[in-house]
């Protein structure tokens, strides 16, 4: 049990000790040796996290198509590999060998940089998630705000895609995406505030540790309200149906990535699923107790909870129709923002008079 639980931390410690011994034996100065080891370990952790992220995205694409097929009473991809599991790999290869098309009057540099700027923040948000007991790549006392701030950079990437393509559908989609991301960021941040108040910390690791006895979603009523509002605004933030106006196929072709093809389009696709996975991991960490859970290894609990949220998102996507743009904005500003503000006040009252949390 303990072996499985500490599997990844033990591997990390073993590699660290090995490198230290190697460089120390080579006769380097201790401070230089420790700096080099820290750099190498950072590179290794970063690479592993990135590969894990890409792997997760590939499984998510497969899962999404399978779930969609089941909901619509179809079979879904079943040709490449067992249960069609290698279908995303085949899709990736197809994207790599496609022609890269840039519209004639497009702003070339902006067009090129947009997918990179859309993807990079998603990867940055990945490095602060506590995947299991002692398994966070980085921890600071502000990582909750870090997640919020990097997700706000991604918005700029969407705008750049819309502007750089020199296409009216792309521009409309980009403007819609930016307006939506800004509007839904506010309830999202406001629902994090009660959690920070309850935990007394902005470190994701400490927030998880505080939930060892009671998950924050069960701190009634504030936890449940916060979770629902957070989840809805997170779905909107990552532009998933029923909030996918920025790329609504029946209205504006494909929104901000209308003019993208080949691997540039692939990067947008990757960023979309990366973001979806990240908001689910953050929701798990903030409301569902992160890696806390009995019997199973901590990282397995974390993945189970995250995938439960992801399946919920896919179910919602396949079931609900798309909002209208004006309904979308009204919903954010007239429903979600007031609710989350009231939620903060309620949390204050609870903390003051009932000493919960």
């Amino acid at each position, binding site marked *: 049990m303990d072996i499985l639980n500490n599997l990844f931390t033990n591997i990390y410690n073993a590699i660290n000790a090995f490198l230290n011994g190697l460089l120390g034996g080579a006769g380097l100065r201790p401070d230089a040796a420790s700096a080099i080891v820290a750099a190498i370990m950072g590179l290794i952790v970063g690479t592993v996290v990135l590969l894990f992220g890409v792997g997760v995205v590939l499984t998510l694409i497969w899962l999404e198509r399978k779930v969609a097929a089941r909901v619509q009473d179809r079979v879904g991809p079943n040709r490449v590999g067992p249960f069609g599991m290698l279908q995303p790999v085949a899709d990736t290869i197809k994207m790599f060998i496609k022609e890269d098309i840039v519209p004639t009057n497009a*702003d070339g540099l*902006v067009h090129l940089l947009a997918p990179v700027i859309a993807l990079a923040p998603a990867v940055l948000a990945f490095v602060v998630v506590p995947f299991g007991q002692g398994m966070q790549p980085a921890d*600071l006392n502000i990582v909750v*705000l870090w997640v919020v*701030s990097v997700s706000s950079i991604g*918005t700029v990437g969407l705008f750049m895609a819309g502007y750089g393509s020199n296409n009216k559908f792309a521009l409309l989609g980009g*403007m819609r995406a930016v*307006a939506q991301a*800004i509007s839904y960021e506010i309830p999202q941040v406001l629902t994090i505030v009660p959690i920070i108040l309850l935990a007394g910390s902005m470190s994701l690791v400490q927030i998880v540790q505080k939930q060892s006895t009671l998950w924050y979603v069960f701190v009634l009523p504030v936890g449940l309200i916060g979770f629902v509002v957070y989840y809805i605004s997170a779905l909107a933030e990552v532009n998933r149906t029923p909030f996918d106006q920025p790329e609504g196929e029946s209205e504006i072709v494909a929104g901000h990535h209308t003019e993208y093809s080949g691997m540039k389009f692939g990067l947008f696709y990757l960023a979309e699923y990366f973001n979806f996975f990240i908001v689910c991991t953050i929701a798990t960490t903030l409301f569902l107790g992160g890696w806390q859970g009995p019997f199973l290894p901590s990282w397995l609990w974390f993945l189970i909870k995250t995938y439960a949220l992801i399946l919920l998102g896919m179910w919602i996507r396949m079931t609900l129709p798309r909002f209208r743009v004006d309904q979308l904005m009204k919903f954010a500003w007239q429903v979600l923002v007031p609710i989350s503000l009231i939620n903060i006040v309620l949390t204050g009252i609870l903390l003051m008079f009932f000493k919960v949390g």
Partner: protein
Amino acid sequence: MLTSQFLTYVAFFVLSAIALIGAFLAVTLRNLVRAALGLILSFMGVAGIYFVLEAEFVAIVQVIIYIGAISVLILFAIMLTRGLMTSAASTQNSQWIGAAFVGMLMFAVLFFVAITTNWPLAQPHTISDLIPRLGADLVTTYLLPFEAVSLLLLAALIGAIVIARE
């Protein structure tokens, strides 16, 4: 110690270069959208400088508010007022030579002051419980400015909606 000090210098110079290049692009480029993107680059560099100064909360706030809100507002305003900006007319007005001269003069004065003043330096200190301290100070020592700024934000919110409404 030596290695980490060297790395701090490298980080500082790279981030300063990013901030200054971004600012230069923001004030000289003719294409306003590209100028605004240069402005975002500059904001990123400044946020990085805050990280070098170990003021991580200000750095994060810089990213959330300047990049996430103000830059996006500016980009929106540029797109909404696009009609005129596509014309070939110069984006600098007739007094740009004078403006450059004033800017250089200002820089000379600031440079002189920064170099010659005998700053009352203290040992650079890091505060371990920075975030709780910031929160406590905002509602004790700095309560009045905090409330004033809240009121100002509310007024600005209402004012912006009233002014921009058709």
